[in-house]
């Protein structure tokens, strides 16, 4: 498989990944929660008393990240070539699927795999293979 060298930079990839891992450790360590984005956001759909504020705070932090990041380093523009209908379809599938499957890339892929959860390993293998097949069928 030919690698695209222009696109690939492994030090930021490892460093960024390490920060994501550190965030997962800190959220469990400080708040006692698994850092699964779909679970954190999904829990706001039927909020329990006293359980919504930390979720909103986390989401607000995540959304503020680009602003904070851009004060330290230039933020590179993103290129999304996906059409509008496709974006809506993808959003619906990601929202519904992550809730039905109890997790996404962060909850299953990072936290679950880290804990060697067989459930998360199965989920991660499933969504990685499905995403690969989907992306290649579109090409």
């Amino acid at each position: 498989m030919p690698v695209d060298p222009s696109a690939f930079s492994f030090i930021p990839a490892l460093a960024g990944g390490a920060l994501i891992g550190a965030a997962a450790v800190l959220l469990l360590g400080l708040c006692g929660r698994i850092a699964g984005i779909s679970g954190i956001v999904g829990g706001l759909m039927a909020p329990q008393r006293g359980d919504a504020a930390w979720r909103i705070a986390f989401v607000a932090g995540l959304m503020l990240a680009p602003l904070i990041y851009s004060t330290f380093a230039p933020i590179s523009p993103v290129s999304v070539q996906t059409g509008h209908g496709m974006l809506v379809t993808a959003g619906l599938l990601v929202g519904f699927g992550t809730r039905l499957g109890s997790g996404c890339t962060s909850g299953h892929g990072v936290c679950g795999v880290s804990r060697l959860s067989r459930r998360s390993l199965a989920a991660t293998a499933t969504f990685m293979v499905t995403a690969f097949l989907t992306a290649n069928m579109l090409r």
Partner: protein
Amino acid sequence: MKNRLQILSAAMVGVLFGIGLLIAGMADPAKVLGFFDTERWDPTLAFVMLGALAVASPGLFFLGRLRRSLLNGPLRLPDTRRIDRRLLGGSVLFGIGWGLAGICPGPALVLLGRAQDQAMLFVPAMLFGMALFQWLEQRRPRP
């Protein structure tokens, strides 16, 4: 007070998570889709996962043994072990959506924070999908 500290922590951890995604390049859907491209493979995603697992594996392992959080709250760890149709079916649907646009929930919210046009379509659709799941779930007969 403890609760306030938890909320403040959650906000700071959210920022850290988002900055991690930005440094890693994972807030760019094109780079994520590059990982699934067999003609011009971009291995970034694999290295991001490697970096995340290298920190999270030992960290979560030791925290799991503490039984309480550092702010002396409960650790809410999932205890389900069943690999069932819901887990796999949901993961298939998520995988299709992820493969279509290269956007998963974390990067979606970071992109929304940048007021990125496409995220303004993707995120409401994602929230609608989650709400739809919740609605169906509450109507599901319990055995």
